[in-house]
């Protein structure tokens, strides 16, 4: 891999905020809308997706030299399907009620556009360290996105957070938040808020910290070999 390719740290930072899979790349929409009616299923789904994404990134970057171009997608799908089955069986064994609540959405991680696109863009081209860092970064970003949507929907929907009553008892529960329309509208508005936030890029402090990290990576003193 050529040296000046993306370093592990850069892929990690990129995955979390600048190229957040949900808010910036708009990938993996199906689970995002489906499981975020409460925090517990959202966190479980994020953990399952993290496991599958990291393992498949590692596996793909290990066998990337053997891949034939026209069988590429088939190999990715097989690898991802295996890790999803392992995750699904693990959930059914140790966290049974959560697995029942998530229902068909755990196997649907196989066709989650995020994982296949990471395998295609990053894992099948980069070394092991970069692919793993990218996997961790992306799954952290995905988890962040899921958690933010689930927080809004659960707070408004049933006044609880992780099942603990947070809002005062007088709060009228918005039943719609647990239903499909609530999911669509919440995600739409959150996308708008993030879009508006990134538009005012220079002002907000968060971008200064990320840029500082970015410039630190460029300076020769600190360029650790990836």
């Amino acid at each position, binding site marked *: 891999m050529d040296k000046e390719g993306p370093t592990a740290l850069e892929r990690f930072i990129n995955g979390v905020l600048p190229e957040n899979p949900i808010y910036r790349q708009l990938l993996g929409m199906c689970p995002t809308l489906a499981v975020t009616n409460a925090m517990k299923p959202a966190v479980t789904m994020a953990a399952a997706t993290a496991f599958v994404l990291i393992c498949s990134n590692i596996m793909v970057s290990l066998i990337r030299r053997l891949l034939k171009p026209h069988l590429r997608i088939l190999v990715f799908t097989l690898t991802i399907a295996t890790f999803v089955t392992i995750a699904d069986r693990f959930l059914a064994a140790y966290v049974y009620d959560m697995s029942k609540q998530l229902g068909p959405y755990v196997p649907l991680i196989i066709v989650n556009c995020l994982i296949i696109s990471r395998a295609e863009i990053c894992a099948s081209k980069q070394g092991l360290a970069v692919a793993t860092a990218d996997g961790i970064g992306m799954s952290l970003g995905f988890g962040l996105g899921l958690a933010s949507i689930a927080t809004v929907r659960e707070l408004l929907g049933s006044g609880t957070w992780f099942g603990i009553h947070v809002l005062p008892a007088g709060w009228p529960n918005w039943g719609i938040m647990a239903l499909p329309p609530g999911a669509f*509208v919440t995600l739409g508005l959150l996308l708008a808020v993030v879009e508006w936030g990134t538009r005012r890029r220079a002002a907000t402090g968060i971008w200064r910290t990320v840029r500082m990290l970015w410039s630190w990576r460029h300076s020769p003193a600190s360029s650790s070999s990836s």
Partner: protein
Amino acid sequence: METLTGLILIFISAALINNFVLHYFVGICPFLGVSRRVDTAFGMGCAVTFVISISTMLNWMFTSFILRPGAPLPAWVWRTAGGNPQTQLDLSVLSYIIYIFVIASSVQFVEMYVRKFSPPLYKSFGVFLPLITTNCAILFASLEVLKHMQDPANLWSLPQALTLALGGGIGFTLAISLMAGIREELDLCDVPRPLRGAGIALIVAGIMAMAFMGFTGVEKGVETALTSLLR
């Protein structure tokens, strides 16, 4: 008679009441991505309906002969291997990997077939075919069929599985075409800056989902109407 009402019920519930896109949230990526113009959206819908029917049919066969608990193949192998009949050997763990394998292969097969035998058809919706392999709706239909094949007492037959697939596909086409129609109008409206693109599309989809929610409960009415009509 009873199976006919059953089929009609499955069709209506898959197409309208529990619409794949607006109720079960599957197939959202193409729903948001391809719905810029009505003709491309309709082309995408037809491609999805076509592929979903083929792959659900193939997956039904695999499920009923290999994957469901108590399927004939593992039972036969277990008997010849001399295992005690008390315990049961089932391969349901392979279901996800076989489904996705069949879907990917059938999409590739259909793409080659359409490219060879009808170039105009290939020109209109050939470009969508590789996009379909990562479409959740196809896999979701097979998972629904698997869910109904768990209890050996009432298994789903091939017509039932095919009706679910067709209903789901037509429901998907309906939702994506409606969405495309609305989004074409949206291009001329003054959408606030941050909402442009995905934001407004999602809010419009939310309102459409609210409208489709009006269908819940229709299934019971249709059921009673059909049973009384056909008696």
